[in-house]
């Protein structure tokens, strides 16, 4: 599979905090890449640079073979990168249909610019079609406001939104946080479907069982760097856990050595 995105030496600082200290990563077509690491490792920051929320302080991003600068969420979307952020990515007061098309609304008289009337018929029809396609149309009305949905339903809406613009890369930042078992399984099923439809996925999680379940590849971050990159088929749950823990042990050992010198 051809590479979808290549990151070289990506750096990002927040004042004196070096959140990303030179990240190199290649995302291949049609793979689910699990991005792992402790809180504060830099996972969210990395995906925010890819999705145009933060400008990078150094390094090079290449998308579909072309070097790019991603200066805004819109530019990321136009490059085929759709992100479901950890914080929440829906507007709860808007309807499902309006959320699905937020920022890319179909309009009837485009010449009117931002005052162009929404094509409400098409909006509703395409939203219903999409809900059916992802199998959550059963009892959801595309005109229902998002604040009437459960957490799992909201996450499914966010994922289907990412799918609809045939993005080449879909990024999910801890999408199963705060979800029940049923809802979590729904999200995992989605991730597989998304991959089977030919999209690449970066999936950030702390749940190693989920990684074994849906991911093709695991990448571990620590202190703003990538410290491990392996294929799931070459490993098993215990080895993967050991790799993550092993990194911890190495740090611990380094810390002890450091302590002894004093």
């Amino acid at each position, binding site marked *: 599979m051809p590479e979808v995105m290549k990151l070289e030496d990506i750096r990002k600082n927040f004042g004196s905090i070096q959140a990303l200290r030179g990240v190199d990563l290649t995302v291949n077509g049609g793979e689910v890449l699990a991005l792992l690491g402790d809180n504060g490792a830099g996972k969210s920051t990395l995906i925010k640079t890819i999705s145009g929320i933060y400008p990078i302080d150094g390094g090079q991003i290449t998308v579909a073979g072309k070097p790019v600068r991603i200066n805004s969420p819109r530019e990321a979307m136009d490059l085929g990168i759709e992100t479901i952020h950890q914080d929440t990515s829906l507007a709860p007061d808007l309807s499902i249909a309006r959320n699905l098309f937020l*920022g890319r609304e179909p309009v009837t008289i485009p010449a009117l610019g931002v005052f162009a009337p929404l094509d409400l018929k098409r909006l509703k029809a395409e939203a219903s079609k999409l809900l059916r396609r992802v199998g959550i149309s059963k009892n959801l009305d595309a005109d229902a406001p998002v604040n009437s949905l459960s957490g799992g339903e909201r996450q499914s809406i966010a994922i289907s939104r990412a799918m609809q613009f045939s993005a080449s890369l879909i990024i999910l930042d801890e999408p199963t946080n705060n979800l029940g078992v049923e809802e979590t399984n729904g999200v995992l099923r989605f991730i597989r479907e998304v991959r089977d439809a030919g999209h690449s996925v970066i999936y950030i999680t702390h749940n190693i069982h989920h990684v074994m379940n849906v991911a093709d590849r695991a990448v571990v971050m620590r202190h703003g760097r990538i410290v491990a990159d392996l294929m799931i088929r070459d490993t098993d749950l215990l080895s993967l856990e050991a790799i993550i823990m092993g990194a911890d042990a190495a740090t611990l050992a380094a810390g002890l050595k450091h302590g002894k010198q004093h």
Partner: protein
Amino acid sequence: MGSGSFSSVLKKPETTSFIILVLVMVGFTLANDRFLSPLNISNLLAFMPELGIIALGMTLLLTAGEFDLSVGAVFALTPVSTLLMVQNGGLSLELALVIAFAATFLVGALNGFLVTKVGISSFLVTLSMLLIVRGTTLVLTQGFPLNSWDGDNWLRTALAGSFYIGTVRIYASLIWFAALGLLALYVLNVAKVGNWITAIGSNRSAAVARGVPADKVKIWLFIATSMLAGLAGVISSLRIASASPVAGSQYELEVIAMVVVGGTALTGGRGTIIGTIIGVLMLRIIRNGIVLVGVPGLAFNIFVGVIILAMLVLHARFNKSSERK
């Protein structure tokens, strides 16, 4: 399905407001049959558009999660500076209006810039702007109302003229209010930018992550609100053929009350133009009806305050019952 859509209509905040509006009107009519007289209806309709026009802008702004306390002061600044240029500067009314509205535009742009780019809350920015604008108006006039202005002008007819339908006197401002109301309704509910306005107030970072230019939209909404406040002030001033530096005092609170009574949330994300029009009618009718019913003037604000609170309690209850955490 039929009962489902009926209950969803009942759950809309503007439906609550509308039912209460009808109850209030029935109550006043029963208490005093002059309430529905042509003269009283003319009076009601004469003052309503001036606050109503500001309320339209305020609704859009509140839906995006911000508000503007400087509207009452702008309501005075725009006509005062216009008439000063006409009376003391010898400018034509048209040219004076262009200059005055350019200044009004800047007030809104500055509000928007300070809120979005500097990151100060709209409460603090527009409170300061209220003081600056009101102070400027007082300095310009030395605190005195301007001489009455008797020049005739097509603009005066267009903005503040009046005509009769039967025995009811209708002011042109009512037509402007209706036209601007339709425009605001279109912008919020049908236009692409209306989707953005709601999204920004509902969850700003989600909107930004979808490529919505949130700051730009907010700045333009501050500008629109200032311009509408200026327009309302000019209409009022042309109607009475004068301008006062203290005109519009506390209008900001009255306008915000109208908007939230109609069902728009102070916290953003939920705005309704229909609700605002009902809210504008409601507060005007209450103020008017209370006088007719003979509530003593000093007790007047108690009554208004209680009604506003009661409406907000109702809206809060309805929202709770239809929402999931």
